[in-house]
């Protein structure tokens, strides 16, 4: 099944499992998604395989970055009539607090949806959205549907 068809079906059936399953790496990390008023909230379930520093333990920085990048891409796919998965041009990740052994949440805001480039800001948190563990700003190359 073509990716664009999987996404169309996921949107019409509001089947977020199907949506995330379309991206193997998101599935590998254990990311799930819920929607509230057009905004997707991604959830990274804690598991041993995402640990970076086992002494703390803390979630691997690359995984937190990937959670945020996925949240941004999924938000773009959800709100935009897209024929292709957005391509990351640049991503800047700020690591703010250590992400401990618990679930992590992420929300992405599309700050600018241009004709070819979309700019997205996303934050990730655990217990308190006002105390984010990490934040990104990223530019994506997008291919809008005709």
């Amino acid at each position, binding site marked *: 099944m073509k990716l664009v068809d999987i996404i169309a079906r996921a949107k019409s059936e509001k089947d977020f499992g199907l949506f995330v399953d379309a991206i193997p790496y998101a599935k590998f990390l254990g990311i799930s998604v819920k929607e509230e008023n057009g905004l997707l909230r991604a959830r990274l379930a804690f598991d*041993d395989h995402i*640990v970076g520093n086992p002494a703390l333990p803390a979630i691997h*920085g690359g995984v937190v*970055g*990937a959670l945020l990048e996925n949240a941004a891409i999924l938000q773009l796919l959800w709100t935009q009539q897209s024929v292709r998965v957005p391509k990351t041009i*640049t*991503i800047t*990740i*700020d690591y703010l607090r*250590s992400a401990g052994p618990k679930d992590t949440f992420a929300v992405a805001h599309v700050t600018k949806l241009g004709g070819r480039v979309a700019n997205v800001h996303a934050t990730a948190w655990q217990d308190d959205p006002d105390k984010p563990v990490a934040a990104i700003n990223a530019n994506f190359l997008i291919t809008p549907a005709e």
Partner: protein
Amino acid sequence: MPHNRALGIEAVLATKGMAILKLPYDERLVGNPENGVSHGGAVTSLIDAACGFAAISATDVPRRLVTLDLRIDYLRPATPEAPLFARAQAYHTTRDIAFMQAQAYQDDIVDLIAHATGTFMFVGKGAGGTERKS
């Protein structure tokens, strides 16, 4: 680091302030299933790991550190079915900060997949003279 193991990351080379890591191709790490290209997040993890390795060896006495930020420019998509490499080097260190630069590539370092810069902060004793939480 469990996630590095889960990804199958291997160390290729490590010297003072420099490290090269390898990420073997794996279908579970794919971003776009239509073309089999590895997800940018997997590249981020590889780059973060390479920078961490390189930063730890950058000082005469190895010191614990945490990532402050990473900026990754994606230059071209990775070729599927082939391993990824990341080479990271500390181009400057201060008492508190390691300034890192990294390149991700496959067959040839002049044909980059991604270019990255990042800062890492030293924590623990020796950082400002006191034990400090980041």
